[in-house]
């Protein structure tokens, strides 16, 4: 019961055992994907199990290590399949979403943070309320407007604008919070020197808010890179698929190309997982703060 540095050490062993087992189990699906990806085959089984399999044969089928090591899935998913094209589509869409999204969010957040004008409160509240709109309620009208009226089905432009707009409220709230912390005195000095609001925005606010702008940009990028439903609904033509839609194409319906899927998943995931690891502490604080305000 009593705490002494010496006696504490051995009691950690059960915790470590538990954590190691749990971590292994929770990473198992990821090991599994790597196994399938490097197996050089399309099958989703790690190893073939004969009809009257022995315990060892069965055990082999669940150990996430490929029987033969091969990178052929990676090579052919990029070369023989249109996956490179889908990746390019995703990259273009995500990059354009980032540019458009950051521009829209920064300007709006600056106005909300620095000006008092009629409609300011209503605008901020409307952003919050819009977060409650369920996706499908938006999806049907958006589909009719973009595809049936504007003819933007299977086009990257339509997707970019929808993604950029959908991420506006979160980005604006986050940026506004950051802009609010920048002291007004800096601007007052600039005003005395004859700077216009535009100059202040570009020369003072944006440089000072670099970290927040970077986070916003990364968030917009992830929205564009990871989104599945809208892309699956709007992109009819196979050449215009984004990577998520393409990955599902490999294993959805009657197609069972698990090798391509696994290799493609790893390629798609690496940038987002890296970004996520970098971003997670901002995300957690941003999300919970948003929930408290809402």
């Amino acid at each position, binding site marked *: 019961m009593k705490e002494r540095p010496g006696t504490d050490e051995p009691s950690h062993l059960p915790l470590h055992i538990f954590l190691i087992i749990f971590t292994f189990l929770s990473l198992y699906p990821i090991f*599994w994907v790597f196994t399938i990806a490097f197996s050089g085959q399309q099958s989703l*089984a790690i190893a073939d199990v004969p009809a009257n399999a022995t315990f060892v044969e069965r055990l082999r089928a669940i150990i996430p290590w490929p029987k033969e090591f091969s990178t052929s899935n990676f090579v052919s998913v990029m070369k023989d399949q249109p996956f490179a094209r889908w990746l390019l589509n995703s990259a273009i869409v995500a990059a354009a979403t980032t540019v458009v999204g950051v521009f829209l*969010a920064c300007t709006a957040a600056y106005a909300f943070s620095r000006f008092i004008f009629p409609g300011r409160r209503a605008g901020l509240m409307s952003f919050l309320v819009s977060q409650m709109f369920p996706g499908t309620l938006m999806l049907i009208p958006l*589909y009719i407007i973009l595809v049936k009226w504007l003819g933007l089905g299977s086009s990257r432009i339509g997707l970019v604008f929808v993604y950029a707009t959908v991420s506006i409220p979160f980005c*604006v709230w986050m940026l506004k919070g950051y802009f609010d912390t920048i002291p007004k005195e800096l601007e007052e000095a600039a005003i005395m020197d004859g700077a216009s609001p535009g100059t202040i925005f570009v020369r003072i606010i944006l440089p000072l808010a670099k970290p927040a702008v970077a986070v916003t940009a990364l968030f917009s990028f992830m929205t564009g890179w990871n989104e599945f439903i809208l892309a699956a609904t709007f992109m009819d033509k196979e050449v215009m698929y984004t990577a998520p839609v393409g990955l*599902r194409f490999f294993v959805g319906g009657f197609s069972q190309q698990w090798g391509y899927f696994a290799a493609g998943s790893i390629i798609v995931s690496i940038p987002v997982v890296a970004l996520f690891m970098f971003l997670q502490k901002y995300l957690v604080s941003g999300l919970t703060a948003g929930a408290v305000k809402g």
Partner: protein
Amino acid sequence: MAAGMLHRRRFAIGLILGLIVGLSVLFALYREARNEIASQAAERSGIISLLSLTQLVSETGPSGDAMRQAVSAVASSDSSLKKISVIKGVSLEASTVPQDSAPRRLKRDEKPIFDLGQRLRAAVQTNREEQVARKNEIEIQQIDNGALRLAAPVEEEGSVTGFVMIETSPSAKPSPPSIVTPIIVGLIALAVFLAVGFLFGEKRTALAILALVILSAALAAYGMMVKRATEADNMSVENKLAKQLSEQSTRSAGLLTQLGITPKAQAKPGLWDADVYRTPRGILTDQGTINKTVLAKKEQSFEQQVNKFQIGILVLCLAILAFFGFGVASKLIQTIVLNRQAYLYVTPAMVAMLVLVFFPFLYGIVLSFTGSTLYNTEKPLTEIWTGLRNYYDILGDFSIVKRSDQGISINFQNFYWTFLFTVVWTFCNVTIGVVVGLILALILNTKGLALRPLYRVLLIFPWAMPNYITALIWRGMFHQQFGVINQIIQLFGGTPVSWFEKPFTSFLTALTTNGWLSFPFMMVVSLGALQSIPSDLYEAARVDGASRWQQFRSITLPSLKPALVPAIILSVVWTFNMFNIIFLVTAGEPAGSTEILITQAYKIAFQQYRYGYAAAYSTIIFLILLVYGSIQNKLTKATEAIA
């Protein structure tokens, strides 16, 4: 005095804008109507010529020299027809173009012509079998310059054997109506307003009434002129068509006598003035005169429509007048000018939100009151308006349990089943996420635990993976034959499970997947909160002799609350709307039993294409979330007040 001047100027501006909008809309409508009348007249005239020809050909038979003679006689006497051809089966029996060298077989590149004949025959047959006019029995095609290509079937002894095709000469577009008239009307109205307004002086009410009266009168006057002119246009078209009909009917009769053919049936030229289903319009009689009662009825319905339009335009213009006249506009402009910097910055984002978020949202709600489907998105909403029908169908259907011979079965398509399932799904997931996340956080928070940052990073991985990939991975691992999960079961001597064939096991797969990707969030949040608890609190408790459980209950849990409650609130909404997992892992299998509300709405919209119904479904989801949000808001406020 100055204010009075201002009033008069404002009302004058409002009146001018109202007049411009109203008169130009009326003018545009008039121009459209004229074009429409002209193109309809061309079409009707074409159909009359075509049907008079088919009647002639069905008397002579679709092949033979007599028919060719008749056709060439018609072509030479009628300058409005550029080309006539008669096709029977695969042979071109007659053509007025010499290069065609009829009669001969159709060539390979003339397959579209053959197909056209097949289409017409099928259309006549279908319409006869179904006793309705559903398929076009006359095909009309626009060629350039308003010329038309028309084709109609020829029947022999009650069955279609061939068809006649004609090309009409290009018809001149009607000259656009005079723009001077509306301008004069507008100027007169303005002059009257200025003159009388001068007498009235600065009285605001009087000026408002004056402007209202003048605007209404001007619009009514020009509207009346337009209506008169349109009616006159209509009448002249009818007269022209009647003349054409009687001419062609005499010509046909003459030709038949000339060729020595006694007509098998009495010609009924009144039938020639038909629509594309060959249903007579009934306006022209067999004698080539105009049936006044039918025409009057048609004109009446037209007039009603025009009146509706006019009232709409008038309301719009009066709104413009009021907007400017009562100074709302000038105040608005002042505000905008005063805050132009702020509005400049906020406009791009606001426009984007309006176009792509708020408008679609409102449009979705409007759609939920209609019977919109894939097939009628082009129709105006008023035509497919169904009121509360969709809501009634969704919420009023309580047949969750069905009794059949095999016993009791559940209707998985029922809204209440899906709702219940969604609630259970959300509750289970959030519970699992919180329990697992909290346990892990407590373990990781142990003092002096080695490798803690490594565990933390590794355990975040499930959250970092894109969730659609996660979902597809688990779908693969739950595969009945090759999936790893079943291999593990077999390893311990069990029998493989068909996961997606029973609602409960299917639910387990989705639960596992979602649990896997949602515990890291709770873990990170809890860990952050745990680390911020000052350790002297525990020391004080230990000094007071509190057990570990007591410490947990009175120190740990209360300190976790501020962080955990928002996280739970958020994760309830996330899970409630967790589209990707359900859609990609269970896909609702079996039989839609594991569908949550949002995936069900998606399937109604994009697999059954019932947009209106799906919109109502989504609106209900929104209302549920709204209720949840307000309850949660009240609860947190209440707890805050107590604390």
